[in-house]
């Protein structure tokens, strides 16, 4: 396995450590797909795409035959691995809503201490639509948000209670950032791990939600 070289790769690498061999995973477009670059040794996952396939294998590279009619959830040309399969949208969302996807990974505008997620609409701004995100978070066995800990202005993205339009209510299980791994539990958000170069105090200061701090906060390792 390759080692992460920047903060975004750290987040992807730590998120990939949640994957277990044989898992069906749905990875949001953008940063979540980077998790595949950091699969732990011995772990092979099957990538679900909500437009109707399991077994996506990334974009065609130089010299690859251009696969007709295989696209990812962003509409981009993709490959299908051996053993992959295609199906219609109805089957796809039955599979998603019915709890057959092991792990969904996606980004956030805000996530709160109850695990409610806002990632599709900013009040006052035009929205592009939620696509399949609301179905994915309502149905997956485990939902992981990967995000920078704060927004570009330095405001916490993990808040006590978000008042943004929701994608899903009480749906997030884990939040992975460049600073911490937070487990959303019925008791509240638990700070399970922090990055090597930070402190519990710094993470608490940069988090809007009131964190539960166990005695043994681990250090994120890669």
């Amino acid at each position, binding site marked *: 396995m390759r080692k992460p070289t920047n903060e975004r790769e750290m987040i992807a690498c730590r998120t990939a450590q949640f994957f277990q061999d044989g898992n069906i995973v749905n990875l949001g477009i953008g940063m979540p797909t980077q998790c595949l670059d950091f699969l732990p040794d011995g772990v092979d996952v099957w990538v679900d*795409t*909500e*437009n*109707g*396939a399991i077994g996506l294998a990334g974009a065609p590279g130089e010299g690859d035959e251009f*696969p*007709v*009619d*295989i*696209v990812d959830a*962003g*509409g981009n040309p993709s490959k*299908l691995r051996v053993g992959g399969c*295609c*199906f*219609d*949208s*109805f089957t*796809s*969302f039955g599979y*998603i*809503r019915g709890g057959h996807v092991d792990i969904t990974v996606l980004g956030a505008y805000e996530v709160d201490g109850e695990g*409610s997620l806002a990632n599709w*609409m900013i009040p006052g701004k*035009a*929205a*592009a*639509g*939620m*696509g*399949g*995100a*609301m*179905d994915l978070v*309502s*149905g997956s066995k485990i939902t992981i948000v990967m995000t920078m800990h704060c927004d570009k202005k330095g405001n916490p993205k993990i808040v006590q209670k978000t008042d943004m*339009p*929701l*994608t*899903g*209510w009480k749906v997030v299980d884990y939040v992975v950032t460049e600073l911490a791994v937070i487990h959303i539990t019925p008791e509240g958000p638990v700070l399970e791990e922090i990055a090597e170069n930070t402190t519990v105090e710094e993470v608490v200061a940069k988090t809007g939600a009131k964190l539960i701090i166990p005695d043994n906060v681990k250090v994120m390792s890669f």
Partner: protein
Amino acid sequence: MAKSKVVSLAEAMTHCHDGMTIMLPGFVNCGVSQTLIEGLMEAGIKDLNIISNNTSVKGKGIGKLVHDDRIKHITCSHIGNNEETCAKVVAGEINITFVPQGSLCEKVRAGGAGIGGILTPTGVHTPMQDGKQLLEWDAAAGKYKFVEPDEPQNGARYILETPLHADVCFVHAYKADKMGNVVYHRTARNFNQTFATAADFVIVEAEHIVEIGELDPDEIMTPGALVDLVVQARMED
């Protein structure tokens, strides 16, 4: 003797009219009926109510209808791949109703399957529940009860999503026989299979039209009984 449903593009368009509600399955620009949409453009048909997942990309597929202001209203889950749609929605030139992607497919399935609606957890406590009826499972009573959005939640809660139906549906097939039995290809299947069940009139464009009997009955994904017309797809897209 099975009758051929194969017609010209121009003849197929005589079944389309201004102001109709039309289902245009496809995902971004994959599995979109490029030829039939071109037919709508050529026939000058306008004021369309569209039910689709996206609006393709700028200048292609549904994007052509967007560009030429043929659309009055869109029901879909995402328009982010087409910046022109986003601009026209912001400018108020196109009305839009967002529906989560899985709920969109279920609503159409209900419309095609004679089901009065579906209960889905998707969108509960989000803006998607606004104006819709909510049901919550009452374990003690062993039945559902209607609840208001601001009532505390005590059991599994669902949105009652109502069926969708259309006047016409355009289907993009990889192969179709002359009586309209359809085989889709890879992820170009997407919404085509479900949407084909929920319109009064279904027109298939096929990349390959084959003789009746050439398709194995087990490989047929949409039965020809659902299909009214078959048109040869132009292959440039």
